[in-house]
């Protein structure tokens, strides 16, 4: 019942996710892109919670807070260093 009353929340989070995904793609500067991507990751985590999928949300949280940023930032730093 609680979730059913959250209809507007569901729709707004969907719209936000769609916008954030577009922003990730359209951000051509990779350093800025990783920031936007982190934001997108957090939105996905929220979306998964809204979907009643706490397991998936945990998975995404573990990955998007450390995994993606670490790997990508090092790749960027490596690319700059040369």
């Amino acid at each position, binding site marked *: 019942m609680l979730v059913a009353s959250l209809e507007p929340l569901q729709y707004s989070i969907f719209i936000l996710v769609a916008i954030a995904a577009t922003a990730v793609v359209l951000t051509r500067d990779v350093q800025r892109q990783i920031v936007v991507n982190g934001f997108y990751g957090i939105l996905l985590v929220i979306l998964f919670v809204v979907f009643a*999928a*706490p*397991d998936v*949300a*945990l*998975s995404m949280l*573990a*990955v998007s*807070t*450390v*995994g993606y940023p*670490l*790997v990508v930032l*090092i*790749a960027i*730093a*490596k690319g700059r*260093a040369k």
Partner: protein
Amino acid sequence: MTRRIRVAIFLPALGLFGVLLAWALVGIPDFGHYRGPYGYLLNRVALPERHMTNVVTSVVFDYRGFDTMGEEFILFAAVLGVVLLLRQGGREQPDELNDSVGSDGVRIGGVLAVGACVLVSLWLIAYGFVTPGGGFQGGAALASSVVLVFLVSSHKAWSGVASDHALDPFDGVGAGGYVVIGLGALIGGLPFLTNVLGPGVPGTLWSGGSAAFVNWSAGMEVAAANLILFTEFIDEYVVPLAAGDTAG
């Protein structure tokens, strides 16, 4: 082919692709009206039959445990690949890299934070059959918390925690353990990956039966694989930096 030609061919095709995709998507039963039967059946039987309150974890490690074994080996193979690619030519380890964090406060706080994160991760793995969590999420969280060691201390401390000599056995044992548990059932005359010890007591650490061991081996594999990956990337970043220091 220039970029302009590429985009000129691509955009109409992508448009058609999008239209087709949308055509398919509107054919899905309305949002919120999942029709089953697979998920409904599992939601009904998982607790009575397997005594696991978290149905998702019971699907991951019991009902569809074989899929998870495959996923685990994707992780395993990808890490082998990264190691193969980044370790070519035997990179030298830097002798000394003075990158330690200055303040004691930061260090103490950092160590406490690392400890707390590690505890939470282990808890996530252990209680995966009861509450949200499990080997995959817990393993990834465990690796992430250990990376904090690098962030709050020095590269030296880090390479002590995460050297490939220490991690590779965990990687192999985690991946192999999954298969061995499955083979154990097979040797006992049951199908591969049969949950021989189950069902356990609902709501406890042992609610998973032998799937609990599968869970732990997956957790070990995921944590070790992610750590190897992070080690490789951190070394990739730190080592040339150190070489630059000594040269300059």
